[in-house]
């Protein structure tokens, strides 16, 4: 942790723009097998106005992190340690009233699997009005005006869509409605958890373009969570890579894609063949993802890492700040990258 604090001070102008700051966040779940560590001493900063892509494989803790930011707690969940600071205020210390204000007005979320999250007996218009009302906004007219504007922004015909029920919308339309709903109260930060995974290919592409446009126009901060690293190339300004409940590398999107420094990031990028480029360079990552109930000691990636040494299997690397909005957690990143 030492290196973390040290460098933070020397970069105060960066700190000014921070909207969300997560420190040492550690979350366990009680499961039949024992304790499952879903988020593990996680550190992450989100800067105002950026789209931060969060990528990681299934089970790496992305959704648990997202829920924690909104303080949505599962009964089996134990917050072991850490804090989440939103504009400098610790979310874990919010009163009920503060929490109500915070949710949706400060931070909103589009849940993973949001395609099923609309109430089947309500028309889209009622979803909009009810959401506003739940947050104390009773001026129906202005809510509908706002909703209309947002639906147009996601390229939906508001006259038609507002009167529809969930089952009358296609998957792509639903996803856009749910996103418009998340923007209704002008939140400062929107978290999108796997917003494209349930959409078919062409709709995905379209939806990502729409999100990018919204972000540009409204200057909101976004966290775009996905297991598909290629998708964030298109929308993110920065990317955080998660492995076994930790952030292991963060940096500007071009740095992460053109100059990844962490062995896992490198291997991950090499394991996703795309429609362009030389396909013969791609290869799988050997081994299997770690078991969160019995994670490997030391660096969580060491059993699969081609560069692992004895130290790696014993000592946990810190998340070290190495440049402008750039962090890495690997003992050997310098040697490996000839720095």
């Amino acid at each position: 942790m030492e290196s973390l604090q040290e460098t933070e001070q020397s970069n105060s102008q960066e700190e000014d723009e921070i909207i969300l700051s997560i420190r040492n966040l550690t979350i366990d779940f009680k499961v039949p097998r024992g304790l499952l560590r879903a988020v593990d001493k996680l550190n992450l900063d989100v800067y105002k106005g950026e789209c931060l892509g969060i990528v990681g494989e299934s089970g790496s803790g992305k959704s648990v992190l997202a829920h924690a930011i909104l303080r949505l707690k599962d009964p089996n969940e134990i917050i072991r340690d850490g804090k989440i600071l939103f504009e400098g205020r610790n979310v874990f210390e919010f009163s009920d009233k503060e929490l109500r204000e915070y949710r949706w007005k400060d931070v909103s979320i589009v849940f993973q699997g949001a395609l099923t999250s609309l109430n089947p007996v309500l028309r889209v218009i009622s979803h909009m009005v009810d959401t506003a009302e739940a947050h104390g906004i009773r001026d129906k007219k202005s809510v509908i005006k706002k909703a209309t504007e947002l639906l147009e922004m996601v390229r939906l015909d508001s006259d038609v869509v507002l009167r529809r029920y969930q089952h009358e919308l296609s998957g792509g339309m639903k996803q856009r409605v749910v996103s418009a709903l998340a923007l209704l109260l002008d939140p400062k930060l929107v978290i999108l958890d796997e917003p494209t995974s349930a959409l078919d290919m062409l709709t995905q592409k379209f939806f990502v373009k729409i999100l990018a446009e919204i972000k540009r126009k409204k200057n909101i901060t976004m966290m775009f969570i996905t297991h598909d690293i290629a998708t964030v190339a298109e929308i993110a300004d920065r990317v955080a890579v998660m492995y076994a409940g930790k952030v292991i590398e963060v940096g500007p999107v071009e740095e992460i894609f053109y100059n990844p420094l962490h062995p896992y990031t490198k291997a991950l990028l090499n394991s996703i063949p795309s429609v362009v480029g030389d396909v013969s360079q791609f290869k799988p990552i050997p081994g299997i993802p770690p078991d969160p109930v019995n994670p490997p000691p030391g660096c969580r990636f060491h059993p699969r890492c081609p560069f692992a040494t004895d130290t790696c299997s014993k000592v946990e690397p810190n998340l070290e700040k190495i440049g402008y909005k750039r962090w890495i957690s690997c003992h050997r990143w310098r040697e490996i990258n000839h720095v």
Partner: protein
Amino acid sequence: MSEVLVETKNLVKEFKIRRRFGGGDRFIRAVDNVSITLREGENLALVGESGSGKSTLGRLTLGLLRPTSGNVFYMGKDIWKMTKEEFREFRRNAQIIHQDPYSSFNPVKTIFYSLSTPLLHHKIARNKREAYHMVADLLRRVGLEPPSDFMNRYPSRMSGGQLQRIAIARAISLRPKYIVADEAVSMLDASLRLGIIDLLLDLQKEYGLSYLFITHDLGITRYFIHKGGGKVAVMYLGSLVELGKGEEVIRNPYHPYTRILVEASPIPDPKMAKSRGIPKLRSLDIPSLTNIPPGCKFSSRCPYADTICEKKVPEYRKVDDRLVACHYAEQFKTGE
């Protein structure tokens, strides 16, 4: 050239759907006049959006569904005209690997049970002891070592990647000739997908298998075909729209639909990805199978469609050694 192993001729599969407010039955055509051939030891990758009929076609070739019309041939024999004995032999030779390994195993049976039962049933193993050794060999073959670690486990105690390896072990256990891999890597973590494909291709070399490899992911298709060779077929609303050899189909597509799929595939390159626009489509939403446009099925979305496309169903045109169902295939080949 090797023998034709699996062949479909003008294959059609319709499903009856019930109307919500009565008024008689309606039919949707999930597979519409599809003819494909797969030779021994070769691959065919089948790509398309969800709902394009890929899985239905796969199941038809396995004899799991009966066609509405048209034929499926296995080694030259119409599978629906086979004797009981022949059909059973065919079913042993034609296996499937599903998308979700967890739902394809009995959750209350051990891995050993799930793998040994078919071996004993088909008398490939004469007794439990023999079955044990065969299962151990299979597990080793799919990279799960030591096998004794896995024998007595339940599916829920395995990771997705491990269980998919077991599904592969089960698929090859009866020494089949033909395997349908239906989105076999889609649900796995990105880091594991290529490992599973590599395994499938190693097994192909060893046993001379033929794969029908179904996926919606064009990057994965490229990897598979690049390493394993074979043909790529693109499906849209039940029809084959483009069929050609090798990854060229993806590198240089002729059909407007294939092109748009390629353009819409995410690329892990921020500069390139950000500079690409939204694919030009007349309509974003895929038409429902109950409401297929007349003429070319793609005409309601195709950015190049004209009145001919809206009226006339395109025939397959042979462009180079590719089949393309588009009125203007030749023009697209040379770049409009």
